[in-house]
């Protein structure tokens, strides 16, 4: 394998560069995926049938916790990549670990939130609004869950095999994924929760 030492490790081989560009294109597709979910949500937001309206069920506290936790995790994974570029394997693993723990925390709050919705009578089958809401949140949550497993695998691999070009590449791509989930959350936070509670 040809190594290009002028580049950071994660860009150092041809295949690594392909992987990173390919993943960015995948994120482009993800933008459309979430845009479609948002479109559905905005269209169906007011169509609550006999079920509750957004203002009826949204609570600010869990949303604030989720937002803060996810923003912080986005910060820590950025630090993780920075540490990786410095070659500080242990620091990197620590930051990745913190990120995953924060992700787990986020998921916990989201599960609480979903049970809350269930208890106030906003289930998946209640109305077009709840279906669109839970699908949008659920898709994001599923992404986070997948990310937790993925991140765990990467930590294990870095531990076992060290900071190879391959592992650095995987870690960097994972960080892109995680940041992207944070961006999506910002939009959920702004245009689902805050907008819903504002009305």
């Amino acid at each position, binding site marked *: 394998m040809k190594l290009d030492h002028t*580049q950071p490790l994660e*860009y150092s081989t041809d295949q690594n*560069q392909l992987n*990173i*560009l390919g993943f*960015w*294109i995948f*994120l*482009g*597709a993800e*933008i*459309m995926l*979430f*845009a*479609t979910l*948002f*479109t559905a949500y*905005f*269209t169906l937001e007011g169509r609550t049938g006999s079920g509750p309206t957004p203002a009826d069920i949204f609570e*600010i506290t869990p949303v*604030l916790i989720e*937002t*803060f936790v996810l*923003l*912080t995790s*986005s*910060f820590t*994974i*950025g*630090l993780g990549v*920075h*540490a990786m570029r*410095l070659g*500080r394997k242990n*620091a990197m693993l620590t930051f990745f670990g913190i990120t995953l723990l924060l992700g787990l925390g986020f998921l916990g709050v989201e599960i609480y939130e979903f049970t809350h919705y269930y208890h106030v009578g906003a289930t998946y089958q209640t109305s077009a609004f709840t279906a669109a809401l839970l699908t949008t949140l659920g898709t994001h949550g599923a992404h986070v869950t997948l990310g937790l497993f993925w991140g765990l695998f990467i930590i294990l691999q870095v531990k076992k095999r060290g900071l190879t070009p391959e592992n650095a590449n995987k870690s960097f791509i994972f*960080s*892109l994924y995680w*940041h*992207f989930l*944070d*961006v999506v959350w*910002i*939009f959920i*936070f*702004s*245009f689902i929760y*805050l*907008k819903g*509670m*504002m*009305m």
Partner: protein
Amino acid sequence: MKELFPAKQVMGFVFSLILTAVALLVYFTDLSFGVGMTILLVTAFIQAFLQLVVFMHAGESKDGKSIYTTIFYGVIIALITVFGTLLILLWDM
């Protein structure tokens, strides 16, 4: 220890917290719908741009141009889809 916390990233984090706080204004104060939506749109898009540049290093490699083109193309199509649909199904019905 200090080298693990580069100023750029820390500033980015602080700034994103500030943006979140600004967005929260629409909840804690009594703004009209139009003003509120404007604030949300501005903060959300700045926030997204911040992540893209500061945390995701979108422009750093020699494929930066392709990456930015892809993302902006995606964003444009996404906005067309969202607002086009709203125009068809809500605003003009």
